[in-house]
């Protein structure tokens, strides 16, 4: 409910800015104009089709990024030599814009779904890996000590103590990565796609359909909320305990 209010306020501000005359409405349409354009695109089916494509790519890429990021972080936390080994690569990967890699990507992966998913994974993986590694090596030492003396091997400690303790922080990473995954799928579609929201964004811009372009952006924005709900839903069983612990302090 509160979420709806927040989004409503946001739309209200948008509407206000659009009517303020700060920028000609032709270039920055009002919410109502955008809604009309969205309705039309919905009816024609092009919006839903593009949305499905983009969501699928982002979701598969995100899941892969999470799986890989967490696994690699666990591997790195267990064998610190590995962490040190690929640390520079991680740093490099984080600053290289995927857009610069699109030509190389097309060359290596072809114009296949692999390309888009590959770019999404590339954009998201370090955002999962870094917080995960940080959380995995910063576990409460007393808990590690307890597990060690209770007979848990380092590997078991990793899975049974470090990982559960790290989930809350890992999920922060996943939240950031979820946004990055959506961005990456749209951006790659803008650069090299023939479908999806990214392509539609480009297409609407190049066919001078400003209202439609904003409608696509609105849909992209709503995906953010959708993905975040997904992340929160997945978070509950793994890191929900932390919220409850935290509510202890909310006694007032």
């Amino acid at each position, binding site marked *: 409910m509160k979420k709806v209010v927040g989004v409503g306020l946001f739309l209200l501000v948008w509407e206000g800015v659009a009517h303020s005359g700060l920028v000609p409405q032709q270039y920055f349409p009002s919410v109502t104009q955008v809604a009309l354009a969205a309705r039309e695109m919905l009816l024609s089916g092009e919006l839903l089709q593009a949305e499905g494509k983009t969501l699928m790519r982002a979701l598969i890429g995100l899941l892969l990024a999470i799986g890989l990021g967490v696994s690699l972080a666990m591997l790195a936390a267990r064998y610190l030599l590995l962490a040190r080994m690929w640390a520079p690569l991680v740093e490099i990967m984080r600053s290289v814009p995927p*857009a610069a890699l699109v030509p190389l990507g097309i060359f290596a992966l072809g114009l296949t779904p692999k390309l888009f998913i590959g770019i999404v994974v590339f954009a998201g993986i370090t955002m999962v890996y870094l917080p995960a590694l940080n959380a995995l090596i910063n576990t409460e030492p007393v808990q590690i000590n307890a597990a060690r003396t209770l007979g848990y091997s380092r590997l078991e400690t990793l899975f049974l103590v470090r990982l559960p303790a790290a989930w809350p922080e890992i999920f922060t990473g996943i939240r*950031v990565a979820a946004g990055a995954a959506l961005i990456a799928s749209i951006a790659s579609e803008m650069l090299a796609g023939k479908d999806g929201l990214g392509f539609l964004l480009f297409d609407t811009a190049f066919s001078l359909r400003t209202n439609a372009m904003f409608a696509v952006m609105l849909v992209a924005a709503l995906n953010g909320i959708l993905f975040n709900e997904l992340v929160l839903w997945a978070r509950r069983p793994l890191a929900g305990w932390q919220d409850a612990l935290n509510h202890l302090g909310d006694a007032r």
Partner: protein
Amino acid sequence: MNRLSRLRDSAWPGTLFLLGLLLTWEVAARQIASPNFPGALTVLSKLGEVGPALLREMGVTLWRAAAGLLLALVTMLPLGVFIGRFRALGDFIEPVIDMLRPLPPLAIVPVAMLFAGVGSGAKVMVIFYSVSFPIILSAIDAVRGAHPMLSNVARSLRMSRREIMLEIDLPAALPQVMVGIRIAVALAILISVSTEMLLSTDGIGNFIMRSQEEFQIAAGMAALIVIAVTALIINGVVEWIDRRALRWHYAKQASTTSN
């Protein structure tokens, strides 16, 4: 010897690993032998040729990245702590953050241009926009995830909300927020380059764009190498600052960790 300092103390494995990658690259390029995929040696010799120009462009890129990052740090860090502390507020603001997050920088460029013009302002705004999210999200989550005990202490000392946020929430959250900041730093460079590829006439992103337009693939890769090296250096600096600012945290982790 503890895990953290062991993690940081040697550059050898990383260097060897990178060299290994370069080697693999060179071998692969020779195997494939395509003008689309020049080898490491070709790219490195190209780097020697265009290096000075690249460094100049990198300077421009970094300047904008730094401006956007700084802006994000000074606004989003406090805002994140604020939202983290006042859950009710987060309920309203977070959905808006979530909405704004998935908009690709490329897509907000037109909007940014409408409001911030077409100069550096628009680019800095886009960088600011993009790097805000890792900072604010990690701040929100870190503050929320902190054990309520310290907040009890602060409240019993009758600290004001502002003081609690500044003197308790922020330092307590910093070890986790630092990871968000590290992500943001790299992202700032990335976005700076990306926006330049799209709407700039200078900066290393523009250089890459030109190289792509002109099919100077080796030159484009040389630019990527410059970005990579810069990223490594900057990350080194950030880590150094991190270790200074959070000396207590690393010492604590080190001192209480078992053998």
